């Protein structure tokens, strides 16, 4: 870990300006991802702007009948919120399927969205990695890729987005709200928030330098049965091999997104229209362009079987 300076901002705009105004500055949320990466010198910020005092820690109802989740709301508080549990249960379930109780207490909504990949080569600074060090190559492509992505990849990077919460946000059509140093705000549909690696795997998302997440907005409730099913090698405290977030209506239609398979939560609205025909119909379409490796091709079978379980559960 390199030495860094530290500041606590007191308002969103001040925080955004502080990061935009200083090369190498970064926001610090709960720190559960950033500090680990700093210890390994995968992230080497020269300055940290701690956002814990900027407010944004409430969950409020919107005029449109949805919810606005402040960027600083902890994962624990969000998962436990009665409105979320009632109307957006897939989100609660996704959150509690992640990390551990202690981590969820610390983790913020914004930080969770921005957690970086768990590609093991990304985590070893001796290894070539285009995401960590652009232009050095990708050690994972011909290497140990069991956990990595099967779709949405490029020949520069095959990392997955590892998180759970965002997969649920994707089926809920959430929007990410931000503020920049000049005070300009924007609202980014979750579908457009995370990037595919393409030629620039170092950029995980579309945020600009110094752009602060202020909250996440959920549109009004859509009813249906909410399921989050996460499959992993042990029963808790592990990242997904494959996860399925789904909201399924009584008539068999619905929405579905997959985690653990792509550089972003993977949802294909055209494929999803085939839900009434069953898991195979959805997965064969959603993963038609998959380029799996020998190590991770099982994920496509697993996605199909997991979705079949989810559909069966929703029906019962």
């Amino acid at each position, binding site marked *: 870990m390199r030495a860094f300076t530290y500041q606590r901002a007191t308002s969103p705009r001040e925080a955004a300006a502080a990061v935009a105004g200083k090369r190498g500055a970064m926001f610090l949320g709960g720190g559960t991802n950033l500090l680990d990466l700093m210890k390994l010198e995968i992230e080497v910020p020269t300055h940290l702007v701690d956002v814990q005092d900027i407010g944004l820690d409430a969950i409020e109802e919107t005029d449109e009948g949805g919810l606005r989740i402040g960027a600083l709301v902890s994962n624990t508080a969000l998962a436990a919120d009665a409105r979320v549990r009632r109307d957006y249960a897939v989100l609660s379930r996704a959150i509690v399927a992640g990390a551990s109780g202690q981590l969820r207490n610390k983790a913020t909504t914004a930080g969770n969205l921005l957690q970086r990949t768990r590609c093991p080569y990304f985590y070893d600074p*001796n*290894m070539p990695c285009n995401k960590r060090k652009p232009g050095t190559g990708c050690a994972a492509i011909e290497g140990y890729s069991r956990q990595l992505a099967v779709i949405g990849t490029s020949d520069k990077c095959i990392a997955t987005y590892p998180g759970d919460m965002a997969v649920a946000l994707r089926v809920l059509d959430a929007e990410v709200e931000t503020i920049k140093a000049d005070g300009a705000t924007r609202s980014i549909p979750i579908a457009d928030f995370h990037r595919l690696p393409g030629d620039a795997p170092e950029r995980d998302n579309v945020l600009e330098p110094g752009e602060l997440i202020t909250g996440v907005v959920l549109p009004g409730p859509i009813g249906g049965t909410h399921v989050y*099913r996460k499959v992993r090698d042990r029963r808790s405290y592990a990242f997904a091999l494959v996860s399925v977030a789904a909201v399924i209506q009584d008539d068999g239609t619905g929405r579905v997104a997959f985690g653990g398979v792509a550089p972003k939560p993977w949802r294909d609205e055209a494929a999803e229209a085939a839900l009434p025909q069953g898991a195979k119909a959805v997965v064969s379409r959603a993963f038609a362009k998959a380029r799996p490796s020998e190590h991770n091709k099982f994920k496509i079978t*697993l996605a199909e*079987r997991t979705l079949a*379980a989810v559909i069966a559960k929703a029906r019962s």
Partner: protein
Amino acid sequence: MEFTAPAGRNLFDSSKVVGKSTQRIDGPLKTTGTAPYAYERHDVAANQAYGYIVGSAIAKGRITAMDLSEARAAPGVIAIVAAPETEPVGKGMSNNAPLFGGRDIAHYHQAIACVVAETFEQARAAAGLIRTTYARADGRFDLPEAAPQAPLAKTGGGKPDKKTLGDFDAAYAAAPVKFDGRYTTPDETHAMMEPHATIASWEGDKLTLWTSNQMIQWGKESMGKILGIDPENVRLDSPYIGGGFGGKLFIRSDAVLAALAAKAAKRPVKITLQRPLVANNTTHRHATIQRVRIGAQNDGRITAIAHENWSGNLNGEDGENGTLQTPKLYAGANRLTANYIATLDLPEGNAMRAPGEAVGHLALEAAMDELAEKLGMDPIELRIRNEPEMVPGSPDKKFSERNLVRCLREGAERFGWSRRSAKPGTVREGDWLIGMGVAAGYRGGPTQESGARVSLAKDGGLKVETDMTDIGTGSYTIIAQTAAESLGVPLEKVSVVLGDSRFPASSGSGGQWGAASSTAGVYAACVELRRKIGEKLGFAGDDAVFENGRIRAGGKDMALTEAGAISAEGSISFGDFKSGYDVGTYAAHFCEIAVDAYTGETRIRRMLAVCDAGRILNPLSARSQVIGAMVMAAGAALMEELAVDTRFGFFVNHDLAGYEVPVHADIPHQEVVFLDTLDDIVSPLKAKGVGELGICGPGAAVANAIYNATGIRVRDYPLTLDKYLDRLPEPV
């Protein structure tokens, strides 16, 4: 004391303390966080500086340049020890590559530098500023590729590791029922909670290491060799150890670099290995490829059995001996066991909990299950039918004490084995496919010479000092129990101090010999003390009865405190008579598992171990040992694997997020039963170890249960769902 004949009736046969479930005497220290582990011993030496080790970025080759200028100039830096500027250190016990020094790189994350600074953060930051360039060389990293050409491994005596009895080939060819299977097990890391850690301090030419090490005498001798100094000038102190599992049997780079760095910095230096270095800098369990062939009569009687094993190691001499249990478990006149060893440039392989047997059972005990199915026999019945009279691989040897059949029968009864469906894939509860599996377990019950000092204080308090270690196993408590029993004082009167090389040498903790050996050594010291007390008070110590703080001898009855302050040393050694016996421990392991019909996720429901290990010194902590071992076995069966990158030559998933061990939720219910047996060949206490027995067999029981649940046999461990998902029946 020399143990030269089977133990007769002695005081332990009417024991009041030994054999009773006893809470750990060090428990309060552990649960209140006041038992100081190596890295936390802030008070043992003033002015401690922090060391941080840099591991090699390549697996094989040479360091061509190392630029230390930026690191040297970094804030807080006191000294840097760099491999290119240091002669390679000597090799201590089981070091296959020098732990430090020179430009040659033998494996990934081999230590190449150590930065010493005022704070940990400064040392770590400066370590990141060292610029090293390498000339990469080709290495051999792929066991499956190297195995076909691998020569026979060498036994301890240097002989080729192949043993035959009768004529395996002919008997196998003639057998009406044959099984031939190839199994693989991956490299594994010990993943103990406490990484290797040491504080080193020099006073003149005397070196003290406050460290985390299972084998104090080995460590002391090795440190002498490594640094080229007189071992008598080395002191190791290791009273608390946060898990070792064989990973702390030998000196590793934390101790060597703490010593070198303390010399360079001219002050005490503390070092802990960062987690990634535990996998690639220290030792690991070697991967294996195993082939098991068994030929049997139609009634299940085995006529031919062969177990061949391939593994790889840096030294090209010895690896994981997966065949160890095979000459012991089942009858059969025609036999073959062989170990082949490939030279690999991966990090060093070495002992991990029940080296050899832990993974050997994963093959042999799955093979027995497969054979039982071919025979249409119950797998328990097959094992019972092949219960041998004499040691099958050494027919001139007797078993010291063996109750495997009882373990199997009692286990079957308790577990409800009769409810198992013999036909796989036929029991279903909702989305779950349910199965049961069984496996037998064998692990040797060795003993080693072991000594102690026992001192009686004026107030009747008893102190035991020995360099024995407690790696979380419960040594403190069984030693206190033994001393209390031997001198007839309540347990509360006994204090135990462990792990200091200034104390009498003990067996140390390894190979499941610690409990049996160290308690026998303490007993020997207590016998000496009883004699000395007798000399002082005028009676024959050997004939006296020490009970309730009093001594009855020759018609006299006196208080123990009449002896005043008095101390004695003693040690136990074991005579040749043992060589006529195989001293082993046995278990029957059971597992019930549920497999998700959709996703293939496995959920262990229950595990049971019925163990036969002689007198159980402390049933409470012995149970913990077996439970922990069963968890580790379940981990080996279901998830643990160091993934090898055969291009870069290293273990990729080198942290606890990437290397998954079971969590509580994976194993909801475990039960351990100890048979009430005594082994008079092993020691005066008639007790054997259990800490490794518990990992021998449960993994195969898990695998057999998965087969029973699904009808799918996977022979490549760990049994992760990707290996059978496409063979699962269509759900619903």
